[in-house]
Protein backbone atom coordinates (compact mmCIF):
# COMPACT_ATOMS: atom_id res chain seq x y z
CA UNK A 1 0.00 0.00 0.00
CA UNK A 2 1.34 3.45 -0.86
CA UNK A 3 2.31 5.86 1.90
CA UNK A 4 -0.44 8.23 0.88
CA UNK A 5 -3.20 5.62 1.06
CA UNK A 6 -1.74 4.38 4.32
CA UNK A 7 -1.82 7.90 5.87
CA UNK A 8 -5.38 8.46 4.68
CA UNK A 9 -6.49 5.15 6.15
CA UNK A 10 -4.74 5.87 9.45
CA UNK A 11 -6.37 9.29 9.62
CA UNK A 12 -9.77 7.80 8.96
CA UNK A 13 -9.29 5.29 11.79
CA UNK A 14 -8.18 8.04 14.19
CA UNK A 15 -11.16 10.24 13.33
CA UNK A 16 -13.68 7.45 13.89
CA UNK A 17 -12.19 5.75 16.94
CA UNK A 18 -9.82 8.33 18.42
CA UNK A 19 -6.13 8.03 19.34
CA UNK A 20 -3.62 9.72 21.65
CA UNK A 21 -1.44 12.81 21.17
CA UNK A 22 1.77 10.85 20.56
CA UNK A 23 0.22 8.65 17.86
CA UNK A 24 -1.43 11.65 16.20
CA UNK A 25 1.93 13.44 16.10
CA UNK A 26 3.58 10.33 14.61
CA UNK A 27 1.15 10.59 11.68
CA UNK A 28 1.45 14.39 11.49
CA UNK A 29 5.27 14.23 11.37
CA UNK A 30 5.35 11.90 8.38
CA UNK A 31 2.95 14.04 6.30
CA UNK A 32 4.11 16.44 3.58
CA UNK A 33 3.98 20.23 4.07
CA UNK A 34 1.17 22.21 2.43
CA UNK A 35 1.73 25.52 0.56
CA UNK A 36 -0.28 28.74 0.90
CA UNK A 37 -1.75 28.29 -2.59
CA UNK A 38 -2.95 24.81 -1.73
CA UNK A 39 -4.75 26.19 1.33
CA UNK A 40 -6.96 28.61 -0.60
CA UNK A 41 -10.65 27.79 -0.81
CA UNK A 42 -13.34 26.48 1.49
CA UNK A 43 -12.90 23.48 3.75
CA UNK A 44 -15.19 21.59 6.09
CA UNK A 45 -13.70 20.08 9.17
CA UNK A 46 -13.96 17.92 12.22
CA UNK A 47 -12.03 17.13 15.37
CA UNK A 48 -9.63 14.23 15.80
CA UNK A 49 -10.22 12.91 19.33
CA UNK A 50 -7.05 12.46 21.39
CA UNK A 51 -8.48 12.64 24.90
CA UNK A 52 -8.40 16.43 24.75
CA UNK A 53 -10.67 18.77 26.71
CA UNK A 54 -11.79 20.19 23.33
CA UNK A 55 -12.79 16.80 21.85
CA UNK A 56 -16.28 17.12 20.40
CA UNK A 57 -16.46 20.80 21.28
CA UNK A 58 -16.49 22.29 17.77
CA UNK A 59 -18.96 19.70 16.50
CA UNK A 60 -21.30 20.27 19.45
CA UNK A 61 -21.16 23.92 18.62
CA UNK A 62 -22.01 23.44 14.95
CA UNK A 63 -18.62 24.37 13.49
CA UNK A 64 -18.60 23.84 9.74
CA UNK A 65 -15.05 24.67 8.62
CA UNK A 66 -12.73 27.39 7.36
CA UNK A 67 -12.43 29.61 4.29
CA UNK A 68 -9.06 30.84 3.06
CA UNK A 69 -9.82 33.75 0.72
CA UNK A 70 -6.19 34.87 0.38
CA UNK A 71 -3.17 34.67 2.71
CA UNK A 72 -4.20 37.79 4.62
CA UNK A 73 -7.89 37.01 4.80
CA UNK A 74 -9.00 33.82 6.49
CA UNK A 75 -12.30 32.99 8.15
CA UNK A 76 -11.35 30.41 10.78
CA UNK A 77 -14.82 29.73 12.14
CA UNK A 78 -17.55 29.06 9.63
CA UNK A 79 -20.76 27.91 11.28
CA UNK A 80 -24.12 26.86 9.93
CA UNK A 81 -26.82 29.10 11.34
CA UNK A 82 -30.37 28.78 10.09
CA UNK A 83 -29.16 26.84 7.09
CA UNK A 84 -26.59 29.46 6.12
CA UNK A 85 -22.82 29.53 6.40
CA UNK A 86 -21.67 32.45 8.52
CA UNK A 87 -18.23 33.52 9.69
CA UNK A 88 -18.06 33.96 13.46
CA UNK A 89 -15.71 36.25 15.34
CA UNK A 90 -13.52 33.88 17.42
CA UNK A 91 -13.71 36.22 20.38
CA UNK A 92 -17.22 34.89 21.01
CA UNK A 93 -15.88 31.40 21.60
CA UNK A 94 -14.32 30.70 24.97
CA UNK A 95 -11.46 28.78 23.33
CA UNK A 96 -8.88 30.83 25.18
CA UNK A 97 -10.45 29.80 28.46
CA UNK A 98 -9.95 26.12 27.71
CA UNK A 99 -6.19 26.21 28.09
CA UNK A 100 -5.57 25.83 31.78
CA UNK A 101 -8.86 24.54 33.02
CA UNK A 102 -10.44 21.15 32.92
CA UNK A 103 -14.08 22.02 32.62
CA UNK A 104 -16.51 19.14 32.89
CA UNK A 105 -17.72 18.34 29.38
CA UNK A 106 -21.35 19.11 30.07
CA UNK A 107 -20.58 22.42 31.71
CA UNK A 108 -18.29 23.33 28.87
CA UNK A 109 -20.90 22.60 26.23
CA UNK A 110 -23.54 24.57 28.12
CA UNK A 111 -21.14 27.51 28.23
CA UNK A 112 -20.40 27.12 24.55
CA UNK A 113 -23.98 27.02 23.41
CA UNK A 114 -24.61 30.40 25.00
CA UNK A 115 -22.61 32.59 22.61
CA UNK A 116 -24.01 30.65 19.66
CA UNK A 117 -27.44 32.08 20.35
CA UNK A 118 -26.05 35.56 20.13
CA UNK A 119 -23.49 34.73 17.50
CA UNK A 120 -22.46 37.69 15.45
CA UNK A 121 -22.08 37.27 11.78
CA UNK A 122 -18.79 38.83 10.81
CA UNK A 123 -17.78 39.93 7.37
CA UNK A 124 -14.26 40.59 8.52
CA UNK A 125 -11.56 37.97 8.30
CA UNK A 126 -10.09 36.91 11.62
CA UNK A 127 -6.86 35.16 10.68
CA UNK A 128 -3.94 35.07 8.23
CA UNK A 129 -1.84 32.25 6.79
CA UNK A 130 1.95 32.13 6.52
CA UNK A 131 4.64 29.49 5.95
CA UNK A 132 6.19 28.43 9.27
CA UNK A 133 8.83 26.00 10.49
CA UNK A 134 7.19 23.52 12.86
CA UNK A 135 8.50 20.10 13.91
CA UNK A 136 11.14 20.19 11.18
CA UNK A 137 9.05 21.19 8.17
CA UNK A 138 8.04 24.53 6.68
CA UNK A 139 4.30 24.39 6.06
CA UNK A 140 1.19 26.57 6.11
CA UNK A 141 0.10 27.96 9.48
CA UNK A 142 -3.08 29.87 10.26
CA UNK A 143 -2.45 32.68 12.74
CA UNK A 144 -5.51 34.12 14.50
CA UNK A 145 -5.72 37.92 14.50
CA UNK A 146 -6.84 38.42 18.10
CA UNK A 147 -6.10 35.14 19.87
CA UNK A 148 -2.78 33.48 20.66
CA UNK A 149 -3.65 30.52 18.44
CA UNK A 150 -1.76 28.99 15.52
CA UNK A 151 -3.15 26.08 13.51
CA UNK A 152 -0.37 24.23 11.68
CA UNK A 153 -1.29 22.14 8.64
CA UNK A 154 0.12 19.10 6.87
CA UNK A 155 -1.17 17.40 3.74
CA UNK A 156 -2.74 13.93 3.82
CA UNK A 157 -3.74 14.28 0.15
CA UNK A 158 -4.77 17.18 -2.12
CA UNK A 159 -8.18 17.38 -0.48
CA UNK A 160 -7.41 16.41 3.11
CA UNK A 161 -5.33 18.25 5.72
CA UNK A 162 -4.34 17.33 9.26
CA UNK A 163 -4.22 20.39 11.52
CA UNK A 164 -2.79 20.85 14.98
CA UNK A 165 -3.89 23.76 17.15
CA UNK A 166 -1.20 25.46 19.20
CA UNK A 167 -2.88 27.66 21.81
CA UNK A 168 -0.48 29.60 24.01
CA UNK A 169 -0.40 28.08 27.50
CA UNK A 170 -2.28 24.91 26.54
CA UNK A 171 -0.07 21.89 27.25
CA UNK A 172 -1.86 19.37 25.04
CA UNK A 173 -2.29 20.31 21.37
CA UNK A 174 -5.67 19.75 19.69
CA UNK A 175 -5.85 17.87 16.38
CA UNK A 176 -8.44 18.35 13.64
CA UNK A 177 -9.01 17.49 9.99
CA UNK A 178 -10.00 19.69 7.03
CA UNK A 179 -11.67 18.30 3.89
CA UNK A 180 -11.80 20.44 0.74
CA UNK A 181 -15.34 21.41 -0.32
Amino acid at each position, binding site marked *: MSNLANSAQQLHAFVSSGTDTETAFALFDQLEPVSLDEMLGQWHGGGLPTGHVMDGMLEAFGWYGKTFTDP*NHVHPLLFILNGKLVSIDPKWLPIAQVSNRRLPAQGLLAKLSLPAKFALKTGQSRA*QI*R*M*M*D*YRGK*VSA*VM*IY*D*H*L*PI*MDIFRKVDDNTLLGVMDL*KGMQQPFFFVLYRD
Partner: protein
Amino acid sequence: MTQFIDHESVDHLDHMIKTGTTVAQALTFFDQLAPVDLHRVIGQWRCIPLSTGHPIDELAEPFGWYGKLFFDPEHVYPLLFRYQEQLISIDPRWIPLSWIGRRKLPAKQVLAAMAKRAQFMVASAESHARLRMLHHRGKLSTSIVYDHRPIIVTLRQVTETTLMGLMEVKDVDIPFFCMMYRD
Protein backbone atom coordinates in the same frame (compact mmCIF):
# COMPACT_ATOMS: atom_id res chain seq x y z
CA MET B 1 32.58 40.65 15.89
CA THR B 2 31.10 39.04 12.82
CA GLN B 3 29.93 41.64 10.38
CA PHE B 4 26.93 40.38 8.43
CA ILE B 5 26.90 43.34 6.05
CA ASP B 6 29.77 45.16 4.35
CA HIS B 7 31.16 48.55 5.38
CA GLU B 8 29.35 50.37 2.63
CA SER B 9 26.05 48.99 3.89
CA VAL B 10 26.92 49.99 7.45
CA ASP B 11 27.50 53.56 6.27
CA HIS B 12 24.27 53.49 4.32
CA LEU B 13 22.39 52.24 7.37
CA ASP B 14 23.93 54.91 9.62
CA HIS B 15 22.82 57.52 7.14
CA MET B 16 19.26 56.14 7.00
CA ILE B 17 19.06 56.08 10.81
CA LYS B 18 20.25 59.70 11.06
CA THR B 19 18.22 61.27 8.30
CA GLY B 20 15.32 58.89 7.82
CA THR B 21 14.55 57.09 4.60
CA THR B 22 11.71 55.86 2.41
CA VAL B 23 9.75 52.63 2.77
CA ALA B 24 11.16 51.40 -0.57
CA GLN B 25 14.78 52.02 0.47
CA ALA B 26 14.27 50.48 3.89
CA LEU B 27 12.74 47.38 2.29
CA THR B 28 15.62 47.07 -0.18
CA PHE B 29 18.08 47.21 2.71
CA PHE B 30 16.03 44.76 4.78
CA ASP B 31 15.83 42.23 1.94
CA GLN B 32 19.61 41.92 1.64
CA LEU B 33 20.02 41.06 5.33
CA ALA B 34 20.60 37.51 6.56
CA PRO B 35 17.91 35.60 8.43
CA VAL B 36 18.31 35.12 12.18
CA ASP B 37 17.60 31.96 14.14
CA LEU B 38 15.08 31.98 16.98
CA HIS B 39 17.54 30.91 19.64
CA ARG B 40 19.95 33.71 18.79
CA VAL B 41 17.54 36.50 19.63
CA ILE B 42 16.68 35.49 23.20
CA GLY B 43 17.40 38.43 25.50
CA GLN B 44 16.60 42.10 25.84
CA TRP B 45 16.82 44.60 23.00
CA ARG B 46 16.73 48.38 22.84
CA CYS B 47 14.68 49.51 19.83
CA ILE B 48 14.81 52.66 17.77
CA PRO B 49 12.38 53.27 14.92
CA LEU B 50 13.91 53.71 11.49
CA SER B 51 11.88 56.67 10.32
CA THR B 52 10.21 56.51 6.92
CA GLY B 53 8.40 59.79 7.44
CA HIS B 54 5.31 58.38 9.08
CA PRO B 55 3.91 60.01 12.25
CA ILE B 56 3.94 56.68 14.09
CA ASP B 57 7.76 56.71 13.95
CA GLU B 58 7.69 59.78 16.16
CA LEU B 59 5.60 58.10 18.85
CA ALA B 60 8.34 55.97 20.41
CA GLU B 61 10.16 58.84 22.06
CA PRO B 62 7.29 60.67 23.84
CA PHE B 63 5.79 57.36 24.86
CA GLY B 64 9.06 56.23 26.38
CA TRP B 65 9.23 53.01 24.36
CA TYR B 66 12.42 51.22 25.30
CA GLY B 67 12.45 47.96 23.39
CA LYS B 68 11.60 44.28 23.47
CA LEU B 69 12.33 41.30 25.70
CA PHE B 70 12.43 37.77 24.31
CA PHE B 71 12.35 35.62 27.43
CA ASP B 72 11.82 32.41 25.47
CA PRO B 73 9.90 31.60 22.25
CA GLU B 74 6.59 31.40 24.13
CA HIS B 75 7.10 34.51 26.25
CA VAL B 76 7.78 37.73 24.40
CA TYR B 77 7.32 41.25 25.74
CA PRO B 78 7.12 43.41 22.61
CA LEU B 79 6.53 46.72 24.34
CA LEU B 80 8.96 47.52 27.14
CA PHE B 81 8.58 51.10 28.33
CA ARG B 82 10.73 53.24 30.60
CA TYR B 83 8.78 54.26 33.65
CA GLN B 84 10.31 55.82 36.79
CA GLU B 85 13.77 54.34 36.24
CA GLN B 86 12.22 50.96 35.53
CA LEU B 87 11.31 48.93 32.50
CA ILE B 88 7.72 47.77 32.42
CA SER B 89 5.83 45.71 29.86
CA ILE B 90 2.73 47.11 28.22
CA ASP B 91 -0.17 45.13 26.79
CA PRO B 92 -0.27 46.03 23.07
CA ARG B 93 -4.08 45.87 23.16
CA TRP B 94 -3.99 49.27 24.88
CA ILE B 95 -2.40 50.94 21.89
CA PRO B 96 -5.19 51.79 19.48
CA LEU B 97 -4.66 50.04 16.17
CA SER B 98 -6.65 52.77 14.46
CA TRP B 99 -3.70 55.13 15.00
CA ILE B 100 -1.47 52.96 12.89
CA GLY B 101 -1.77 54.04 9.31
CA ARG B 102 -3.20 57.41 10.21
CA ARG B 103 -1.49 60.41 8.73
CA LYS B 104 -2.29 62.75 11.59
CA LEU B 105 -1.95 61.97 15.27
CA PRO B 106 -2.75 63.95 18.42
CA ALA B 107 -0.11 66.43 19.54
CA LYS B 108 3.01 64.91 21.10
CA GLN B 109 2.31 66.49 24.49
CA VAL B 110 -1.16 64.95 24.53
CA LEU B 111 0.27 61.56 23.66
CA ALA B 112 2.95 61.80 26.32
CA ALA B 113 0.34 62.65 28.95
CA MET B 114 -1.81 59.73 27.81
CA ALA B 115 1.16 57.41 27.88
CA LYS B 116 1.95 58.30 31.50
CA ARG B 117 -1.59 57.43 32.52
CA ALA B 118 -1.71 54.33 30.37
CA GLN B 119 1.42 52.90 31.95
CA PHE B 120 -0.29 52.77 35.33
CA MET B 121 -3.20 50.85 33.97
CA VAL B 122 -1.69 48.38 31.61
CA ALA B 123 1.66 47.26 32.97
CA SER B 124 1.49 43.49 33.21
CA ALA B 125 3.69 40.48 33.81
CA GLU B 126 1.91 38.55 31.08
CA SER B 127 3.73 38.09 27.80
CA HIS B 128 2.03 39.34 24.66
CA ALA B 129 3.69 37.61 21.73
CA ARG B 130 5.56 34.49 20.61
CA LEU B 131 8.58 33.82 18.42
CA ARG B 132 8.33 31.56 15.40
CA MET B 133 10.37 30.89 12.26
CA LEU B 134 8.25 32.28 9.41
CA HIS B 135 9.03 32.36 5.70
CA HIS B 136 8.66 35.94 4.50
CA ARG B 137 10.18 37.95 1.66
CA GLY B 138 12.14 34.94 0.48
CA LYS B 139 13.78 33.88 3.76
CA LEU B 140 12.99 31.76 6.79
CA SER B 141 13.72 33.94 9.82
CA THR B 142 12.61 34.69 13.36
CA SER B 143 9.32 36.56 13.56
CA ILE B 144 7.41 38.06 16.46
CA VAL B 145 3.76 37.00 16.30
CA TYR B 146 1.57 39.13 18.57
CA ASP B 147 -0.96 37.23 20.72
CA HIS B 148 -3.96 39.52 20.42
CA ARG B 149 -3.13 41.77 17.50
CA PRO B 150 -2.81 40.96 13.80
CA ILE B 151 0.81 42.13 13.90
CA ILE B 152 3.90 40.25 12.72
CA VAL B 153 7.44 41.61 13.05
CA THR B 154 10.03 39.92 10.84
CA LEU B 155 13.60 40.04 12.15
CA ARG B 156 16.84 40.01 10.17
CA GLN B 157 20.45 40.12 11.29
CA VAL B 158 22.57 43.25 10.78
CA THR B 159 25.48 42.37 13.09
CA GLU B 160 25.90 39.92 15.96
CA THR B 161 24.26 42.45 18.27
CA THR B 162 22.04 44.39 15.88
CA LEU B 163 18.78 43.32 14.26
CA MET B 164 16.40 45.04 11.90
CA GLY B 165 12.67 44.54 12.40
CA LEU B 166 9.94 44.89 9.78
CA MET B 167 6.55 45.37 11.41
CA GLU B 168 3.45 44.59 9.39
CA VAL B 169 -0.10 45.17 10.57
CA LYS B 170 -2.93 43.36 8.83
CA ASP B 171 -4.73 45.56 6.30
CA VAL B 172 -2.34 48.49 6.85
CA ASP B 173 -0.40 48.96 3.64
CA ILE B 174 2.65 50.75 5.10
CA PRO B 175 5.25 48.69 6.95
CA PHE B 176 7.24 50.04 9.89
CA PHE B 177 10.90 49.51 10.64
CA CYS B 178 13.01 49.47 13.78
CA MET B 179 16.64 48.89 14.61
CA MET B 180 17.28 46.64 17.60
CA TYR B 181 20.45 46.70 19.73
CA ARG B 182 21.21 43.91 22.21
CA ASP B 183 21.47 45.08 25.83
